[in-house]
Each structure stands twice: as structure tokens, then as C-alpha cells.
């Protein structure tokens, strides 16, 4: 029976090729536009660290009180050095790291090679386990390196390739600015996007880019007075100058992360954070009640609007386009099906049930949907490829086609077409055989 309907459908589609082509093109462009924008949206809202992001939390503490310029008194994203040190020493989470961005000039040992800039982060050794940093050679530094602030250094695979030709460089020395560091580990490929771990401002939402080149102990960086490459954010009345003044100030510049594997851990840490702020109030450092936040990665990304608004709006518009295409398809299928009223009349008179007629037309619609889907695949491919021309490479690199997207394209176009065909099919099934036979 399906074979017969299939044959009927092919014959009918070939009888009015222009209308058929129009329907196919509409389905194809409709589905392709929403798929291309969906691919962009998916790329930008993808979980940067699947399986781990829900348990990585970012504590925030309001240490400015009424001087906080934020309209909703949201605490700043970064902490002052005072608070970061206090949280590190409290050790209230199984794993924790303070973090800030650093930039150095690397002076190659070979004097003929020009110095170049390297970027990275000052972290504690917990960072590598917390953020799933794989190690190609060696390992992160020890806890005592953290305490003493030694000159240990973990470098990226890219930097290792550039300096040491990709060989095991553990134990070798690297000169950053005017200080020698000893390599303890070479990180494998690791570059979660966006670089959520370093987000320092809710105004910078497009933090996509290359993997960091180096990691060094937080304590060492602070002792060496390595300034933050992000800049620090001070209260307008801040008068201090110099490194020591900064460390004792309420200027915020240190990102902090804690690893809280279970909900109980998260609850426990949230109350710890609250109590910490309350203690600061009792001590007279804060003259306001505790105002703290503990957001995990998905919550943080939503809070900083990590997905550019324009991409969401584009997706919305593309959905609108698909809706218009579908309304169009309903009209065209209605025309197409009703044109065949006489044929339906004959089939009904010869004993075909309404169900049979309905099935026949739905199969025809599904076929059109499948062909439209194939066109949609082609257009989606072109569209995703064309993203490279539209956007800077950093974002375009994230947009890609995979089996899931291809399957979704086919599924959406078939389901959408069958949905669009429901009403025309129902109308076709309602055709009165007697009427049709009489008028002919």
C-alpha cells in the first residue's frame, strides 16, 4: 500500500513541477535559515566544560557597599586580594583557586630570536584538576610550591612546540620579563570557549580566543608584583599607589573559583560565604549586611550574557522566517491537494476510506518534506561555511556541522511539512465523492 501511495505521490509531484519546486524551496530555505542561526547560537551557548561546569562555582562578595556603582548592588565579579587570600586560607571547599590574568614578554635564550608576548594566568595548583587541564608532560606544581610561591611554570603545548620543538621540556628554564622560571608541566590541548574562567567584567561578553600560554603559582605572581593584565577596578576615592597599597585595598581584580561536587557542598559553601561577609561586618570592615553570590558556570554565563543578544535575535528572526515559509507551504499544499478533488472523488467512490486518502496525502507531504530537507542540508552547509566570511574567525571557528545538526535539519523539515500538510490533508479527506463525480 505504501508503495502505491509513494508512486501516486511521485506522479502528482511531477504533474505540477513548478508548485512542487516552490514548496521544496520554501521548506529548504526556511529550515536552513533556522538551522544556520541555531548552529551559531549552539556554538556560543555550548557548555564550555561539559560534565564539570555545574560544580564549578564563583564566589562574589560585595566589598564596596553603597559605593558599588551597580544599580542592583550586584557584587563585582572579581574579589579584592584581601578576600581572595582569606578564602584561600579558609580552605572551605575541597578544591579552590584564585586566578588572575598575566602577560609577559618572553625573551628566548637564543639571542637571535625576537622577544614575543605570552599571556596566561596566575593560579593555584588545584586549577588543573578543577578545570580538567590535561598534562602532556610533567604535572602541576605541588601544594608547597603554592605556599612558598616558587618559580614553577606550566606551559601550553603551543608554547612548548615553539620553544622546545614539542619535546619533554620539564626541568628546562624560561625567561619571562626579567625572571627565570622552571617548567614543571606541559599542558595538553585545553581551551574551553568562552574563556569563562577569566571573565572579569560583565561588559566583555566575547571572551573567545587562544589557549593561555603559561600558568604560574598565584603566590609567586603576587610576590613578584606581576600586575594583572585585566586591570583592577578601584573605588573612585581610592588614593593608594604601588603594589602593597593595592594588596591592602578594596580594589577588585582576583577571580576566585571553588569546586563543589555535591549540592550539599554548595549549600555548605554558600553559608560559609555568608558567614564570612557577616564576620567582616562585625569586624567593621563592611558597614552593610552580607551581600554575596555563589554562581556556577551556567548561572555565571547567563548572568554575564555570554551569548551575544544579536545572535539570539537573529535566531528568533530565522524562526519567524520558517514560520512564514510554513504558512506559505500550507497554502500551496492546500491548492495542490484541492486541485486533485476529482481524483479523490473517484478514489472515494471506488471504496477508499477517508483514512486512506489522508494517509496518501500525508505520505506525499512527507516526501516533499524530505526533498525540502535535502535542499535544507545543502543550504545549511553553505550557510555555516559562509559564517566564516560573516564573522571574525574566533566565533566562526566555533560554528560547525555535525551529525546531530544534519539529523535535526532533516527531522525539522519533515515534521514541519507534515504539520503544514495536516489541514490540507484534512480538507482533501473531506471531499464528497458525489459532488466531484457530478460536476464532471
Amino acid at each position: 500500500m505504501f508503495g502505491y501511495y509513494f508512486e501516486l505521490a511521485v506522479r502528482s509531484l511531477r504533474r505540477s513541477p513548478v508548485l512542487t519546486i516552490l514548496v521544496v524551496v520554501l521548506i529548504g530555505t526556511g529550515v536552513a535559515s533556522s538551522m544556520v542561526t541555531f548552529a551559531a547560537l549552539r556554538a556560543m551557548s555550548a557548555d564550555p566544560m561539559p560534565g564539570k561546569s555545574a560544580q564549578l562555582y564563583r564566589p562574589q562578595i560585595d566589598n564596596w557597599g553603597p559605593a558599588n556603582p551597580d544599580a542592583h548592588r550586584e557584587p563585582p565579579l572579581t574579589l579584592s586580594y584581601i578576600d581572595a587570600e582569606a578564602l584561600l586560607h579558609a580552605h572551605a571547599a575541597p578544591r579552590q583557586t584564585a586566578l588572575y590574568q598575566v602577560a609577559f614578554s618572553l625573551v628566548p635564550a637564543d639571542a637571535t630570536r625576537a622577544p614575543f608576548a605570552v599571556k596566561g594566568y596566575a593560579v593555584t595548583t588545584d586549577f588543573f584538576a578543577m578545570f580538567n587541564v590535561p598534562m602532556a608532560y610533567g604535572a602541576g606544581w605541588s601544594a608547597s610550591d603554592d605556599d612558598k610561591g616558587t618559580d614553577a611554570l606550566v606551559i601550553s603545548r603551543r608554547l612548548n612546540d615553539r620553544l622546545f620543538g614539542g619535546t619533554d621540556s620539564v626541568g628546562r628554564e624560561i625567561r619571562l620579563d626579567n625572571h627565570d622560571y622552571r617548567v614543571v608541566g606541559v599542558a595538553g590541548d585545553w581551551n574551553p570557549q568562552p574563556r569563562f574562567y577569566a571573565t572579569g567584567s560583565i561588559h566583555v561578553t566575547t571572551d573567545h580566543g587562544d589557549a593561555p600560554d603559561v600558568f604560574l603559582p598565584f603566590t609567586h605572581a603576587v610576590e613578584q608584583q606581576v600586575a594583572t593584565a585585566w586591570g583592577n577596578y578601584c573605588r573612585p576615592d581610592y588614593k593608594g599607589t604601588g603594589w602593597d597599597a593595592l594588596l591592602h585595598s578594596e580594589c577588585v581584580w582576583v577571580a576566585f573559583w571553588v569546586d563543589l561536587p555535591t549540592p550539599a557542598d554548595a549549600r555548605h559553601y554558600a553559608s560559609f560565604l555568608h558567614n564570612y561577609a557577616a564576620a567582616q561586618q562585625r569586624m567593621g570592615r563592611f558597614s552593610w549586611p552580607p551581600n554575596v553570590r555563589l554562581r556556577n558556570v551556567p548561572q555565571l554565563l547567563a548572568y554575564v550574557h555570554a551569548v551575544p543578544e544579536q545572535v539570539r535575535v537573529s535566531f528568533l528572526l530565522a524562526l519567524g522566517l520558517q514560520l512564514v515559509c510554513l504558512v506559505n507551504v500550507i497554502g500551496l499544499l492546500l491548492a495542490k491537494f484541492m486541485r486533485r478533488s476529482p481524483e479523490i472523488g473517484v478514489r472515494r467512490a471506488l471504496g477508499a476510506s477517508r483514512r486512506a486518502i489522508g494517509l496518501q496525502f500525508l505520505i506525499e507531504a512527507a516526501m516533499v518534506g524530505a526533498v525540502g530537507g535535502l535542499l535544507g542540508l545543502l543550504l545549511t552547509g553553505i550557510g555555516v561555511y559562509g559564517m566564516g566570511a560573516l564573522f571574525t574567525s574566533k566565533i566562526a571557528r566555533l560554528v560547525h556541522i555535525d551529525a546531530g545538526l544534519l539529523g535535526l535539519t532533516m527531522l525539522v523539515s519533515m515534521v514541519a511539512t507534515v504539520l503544514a500538510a495536516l489541514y490540507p490533508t484534512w480538507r482533501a479527506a473531506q471531499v464528497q465523492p458525489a459532488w466531484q463525480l457530478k460536476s464532471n
Partner: protein
Amino acid sequence: MQIRLILAALRQHRAATVLVVLQIALTLAIVCNALFIIQLRLAHIARPTGIDEAHIVVIQNQWIGKHETAQLSARLATDLAALRQLPGVADAYADYTYPVAGPWAALLRIGLKPDQRAPTSFAEGYQADDHTLSTLGLQLVAGRNFRPDEIVAGSVDDALAPPVIIVTRDLAERLFAHESAVRKRVYISDKPSTIIGVVRHLEVPAVGTHSFAYCSVLLPSWPAWPYGNFYVLRAKPGQLDAVMRAAPKALLAINRMRVMEGGAKRYSDLRAAVYADDRGVTLLMSMICVVLLLATVGGIGGLTSFWVGQRRRQIGIRRALGATRGDILRYFQTENFLIVSGGIALGLLLAVVLNLFLMKHYELRRLPLSYLPISALVLWLLGQLAVLGPALRAAAVPPVVVTRSV
């Protein structure tokens, strides 16, 4: 007469008519809002910087190692002197930033009184010396330029409390309305400064700002601080490429212990890169709009041509009864006009609803009413365009069709 005929005919195709009306309405609502968003982005991208963009070269300079302020300032002096001597260079200065550098803003709060609770205006600063105006090609509309002895070389904290400043006309008007701003005292983050000059126009370094995009302040200072600086150069006409090759070489010849990421860059390239994603999204939305309109035209055309095919007999009868080709043509055109008008009426309502939704969830501004009639006109024209082909075919149906039985 025709209209009653048309309405009677449409009643026979109630479902199809409703579908076309719906489609026109959705198209209108979406296109209106998309065009508005596109226009806002384009206006943002086209914001004038106020500088001589075509001839500007920017070099990022980062010193290796830690240095004292005095040492850095001596190095800046040497570098700038060398750059200004280069054959193709008209002028040069050093800054911690440059116009439309990126998304980062370093806010200055400008007030008219010390300890003012809310600032009179926000602004952003440039570090400038007596060569800045001539390098950027800025026009002084009142007052005077900095004198060499007014330039301080020091940390940013020193730069932020200068005795004298130059501001843009936009900022001057915000602070003092139509009075002359020259020799007036203002407070930058509660520290006093006197305005000595006003320049016509200069956009701020941060790209995302809207409310104070043209409120720039020139702070007479050199970026003698450890975070590096930009050298901004203006090339003489036709000398841009030569300057881009010569300048980094000259700087390296003075001192090799520096990193100049990417070497010398054309300002026009830097500005284009900042807006690349904006342009991408704008293009994407424009393409969605075009496809949407094409789909609507195709859909209406397809449906009308089906109706024409279905009514060949009736058209033949009308022609046999004396209707002219023009009558038939006008019949289909009027029919389309009526349907599209229905769609537009519903679409105007939908457009406002969609705009309210976008305003609520996506920080879009209120849709200017002028978009509605323009979009309506476009859809009327497109509707007529879509119907023209099928209508002409209908008009070509000969009266003799009636005499042939089906």
C-alpha cells in the same frame, strides 16, 4: 462592482485567503523589526570617529622588564622624536589607547562641583601631548592646544588629575550648554581641571558606549607606565605603506627589548576588525529579510497562479460576456491588493507586539512609527509584483475557452 465580485470569490477560498493574510502579517511584523535592528547596527558601525582615519597607523608597544617612570618617559621621548623624524610621518604621539579600540571602557566622571554625588556626564580620556591634535587631524574650535611644558609623564594616577584639559564639543555642550567652555573649571573624579580648548569631534575608545560616545577628554600626559602603550602616527598622503614598514624598524633600532604585537597596523583595519561581528550579524539579518520577502512573493505568486488555473473557465465566461483584458488584469490586482491590505492591517498590530516583546527581552528601543508605512508600502508593491505574472496570464485567457468543454 469588481470588489463585490472579488469578495464573493474569496469566500470560496476562505482558508487560502486567511493563510495569505497571515503570511503578509507575519512578514510585515518581522521585516519591520529586523529593519529597525539593522538600521540601529548600521548607525552604530557608521559612527564617525572624527579623526583622519585613512592616514593613521597604530603600533602597540610593550617594554620588556620593569622600569621606573623616569626611564619610561625618557624612552617615550626618544621613540617619539625618532618617529616624528621619519620621512613619511606627518606627526606622532603616544597613548594608552586609540579611538574605538575595543569593548573596554575606562570611565571618567565629570562634574561641575567637587564631591558631586552624580556626575554631570561620563566621559573617556585619551593621553595627549602637543602633537595629538595634528596627529589625529582634530580641529580646535575654541581655546588653544597644550604647551609642551604642560605634559606630565607619569603613572595613570598622575594623568587623571591634570591642571588643564581639552574636551570635545559634545562634552562641552553637555557641561555648559551654549556658554563657552574655555577657562571653565570641571572636576574629573572629584579632582579639578581647567578646560583650555575644545575640539570639534572625537569618539571615545570604548566601542559599546551609547550615552557618551563623543564625550572625550584629552589628558596632557605620556603613558609612562608598565602596561605598554600605543604609538599613533599620521602618514603623509601616499606614504602609509612606507611608514608601516619603516616605523617598527626604527623603533627596534632604538631598543630591541620591546614587543610590538602585529607590528604596525592600519587604523582603518583596526576599526573594521572591531565592528566585524556587528557587520556579520547585520548581514545575516539582512539576508533573512531578503529571503523572507522572496518567500512571500513566491508564495503569493504560486497561490495566485493556482487560482488563475482553477478559474480559467470563469475568466473565459467573463471575457465572452464582454470583459476586457484590462478588466481581468485589474480583477486579480485588486484581489491581491485587498488581501495584502488585510495582511498589513493585522501585520501593523503584530509588528508593535513583536517590538514590545523584543523591548522587554532584548533591550531593543521603541520602533519608530515611520517604519510601519514604509514596510506597508513595500509589501503592497511586492504583492502587486507577485501577482503580475499570473494576472497577465489570466488576462491572456481567450474567450473561446468557454466553447471547449473540459
